[in-house]
């Protein structure tokens, strides 16, 4: 879509950042639950909080807030959407 898209790893997530799930690897151990929670290919979300120690992060996805660990979103391929207008944390 946007020309600003670039591939992200979960380590890059910062407060206020917008990202989109570009793909999932269903075979991974932790993936099915993430699918059930609504993190699907094409789903966009915004990072609302990063815990003081860097992890977990809270995201706003499908109108609700969900805290996940960065290390446990490995099955999601993420791309960043330009992070505009958001107040940086």
């Amino acid at each position, binding site marked *: 879509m946007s020309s600003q898209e670039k591939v992200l790893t979960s380590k890059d997530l910062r407060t206020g950042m917008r990202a989109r799930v570009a793909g*999932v690897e*269903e075979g991974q*151990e*932790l993936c*099915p*639950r*993430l*699918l*059930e*929670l*609504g993190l*699907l*290919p094409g*789903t966009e979300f915004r990072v*609302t*909080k*990063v*815990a*003081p*120690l*860097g*992890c*977990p992060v*809270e995201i706003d996805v*499908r*109108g*609700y*807030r*969900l*805290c*996940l*660990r960065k290390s*446990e*979103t490995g099955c999601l391929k993420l791309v960043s959407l330009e992070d505009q207008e958001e107040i940086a*944390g």
Partner: protein
Amino acid sequence: MVETSAKKRVALVGNPNAGKTSLFNALTGLHQKTGNYPGVTVEKSEGECQLTFQKVDVVDVPGLYSLTPVSTDEEVATSVLLDEGADLVVYVLDGSNIERNLFLFSQLADHDLNVVVALTMTDILMRSGGDFDIARLSTLLGVEVVPVIPHKGIGIPELKEAMERAIEDPHTLELDVGFPKVVMDAADRLADHMNRRGIALGLREARCVLLDEHCTTADRFRDLPEHIAAIEEERKAVLGASGQGRTLDAQARYAWAERVRKESILPPQNKKRSKSEIADAFLTHRVFGLLFFLGLMYLVFQSIYTFAAPLMDLIEAGKTALANWVSPMLESTPMVQSLVVDGVIEGVGSVFVFLPQIVILFFFIAVLEGTGYLARAAFLMDKLLGWCGLNGRAFIPLLSSFACAIPGVMAARVMPDQRSRLLTVLVAPLMSCSARLPVYLLLIGAIIEPKYGPAWAGFALFAMHFVGLIVAIPIVFILNRKISKGRRLPFMLELPKYQWPKWRDVFLTLTSRSKVFLQTAGTIIFAMSVLIWALLTFPQAKPGTYQKEYEALSVERQSQISEDEFAELRQREDSALGRFGRTIEPVFAPAGFDWRITTAILAAFPAREVVVPAMGILFGTGADVDEGSPKMVQSMQKATWPDGRPLMTVWSSISLMVFFALCCQCMATLAAVKRETNSWKWAAFSFGYMTTLAYIFSVVINQIGLAVSK
């Protein structure tokens, strides 16, 4: 499904945090604790609900994200719902989080259920300028939808009417989520293939088999290789090489949920930051958030020490008054007098005196939980607990364990996977429970406070609560490597909006906790007090036995202790328990414990609370006790080794406190560990590793102390 003559069964089903428990309370009137962290209703709770024409049984099914269970709790929930069956499902739909909540709803349609929807959290959306089209939602879902605000009772009569209608005139939930045509065609072909070969397979089942290789229906074909080939072929046709069936399934359901939301809900209009978000900017801030957390924890433990003091003095005074009142009445039978005064009143009273502190601690836990801060604490602490194999959710069981390990061990059920659950159960008893408080308070009050003042006393109490926590970290780290059971689940948590705690819930928590505590004091502690008294009183020595020994003492010693006091001490030393304590004194001597402390520790193995009454009896009561100061503190300060060295130095009292911090002296906890892990092996393991740790640590501390003070 269920015979019609019996009372109808209604199952409350929904996502965690959807407001299920509140609705359950509103329907049944039977009270249950509601909380903000996930999985409060892990245990199956049932109640009765009076509808207009009939009474029905209501089952509060544990919160679920999906009917494909991944955790033990979800297995319980799905089996309650699908195996036991229900005449009616009341689906609790969180109106503020409708898409995710509709995902589970869409799965209900695969199981021939009779459903009514209770729409909760409508007030949250309304307040931010959004709105619902209930009629439209009802049409789209194909069932009655009743908006409710359970804790205010709003919508409850309407919901009951809807439930009655649905029970009288049941309909099976039918839903067309709109799976891609290629999926439905393949399912059609597959069902046809099986049916022609005499195997019953419905369309929905066929779809499940196609999209999810773990689908339970697929198990039916495990031993029929010729059919598996057919399934594989259709799977390839639908999914191509990727094989991502569950993604396809979730995408179809979420696409449907999104359509439903767009058609029936006007989203929030004012986008300005909510009060909770503003608060969180501070409370989860990387610097202030952590400082606030630490400060708050410090405040909690300081106030336990400070606020409880006057109440404890009051109870102490009451105990003395009671003893003084009862004592003369039993003058004629010294044995009974001693049993009642020294055994029962002293024993039970010395435990009862800690009630104020337990109430204060539970008050803080209940308030923090009620406001939503506990979930933030889990958010803040996850990284810290996570690297060694636990997660932020363990914070809740671990924090509860600071009150009592038993609810803590039971609260470990909120851990979503077996492994972290077991780890939590094993280390929860290391947290400093309130039963350890008496020992800390006694020793800090007797030894540390007089020497260093109240500020250091408060700090010492604070520090003692961290000993177990710090020791737990390497333990978890090691155990995590050794245990390899259960499948891993992602850590997930939702931070609820901040709110004022519901004072009724706080009050109910406090009363129920206090009741449990007093029951223990009234039964186990009572019995143990009597037993210890007896073991310390018998066998009785003849009067005058110790006269010669006393006369042989140096003049200096004689000036410190009267003959009667000496005889009493020697009598205890020669009692059954005293002899046993003295036999094994050498084992504990390196830790700085004499036979009296050793004996008290032995007596306290079934329940650590017993140690204080035991020490009270063992240290005896001198004749020349000051009016103002508690007897036990005085006699502990005065206690010496036989050679006159003071028994309780700062180091030996720290050693003793650390011993109590780490030792597993609680039968009830071990029983809880056994129950939760379903094996005595883990209970024995808990006891073994904790006792070993306690012994090693207290010996090391005392030896350091001896070296330093030389």
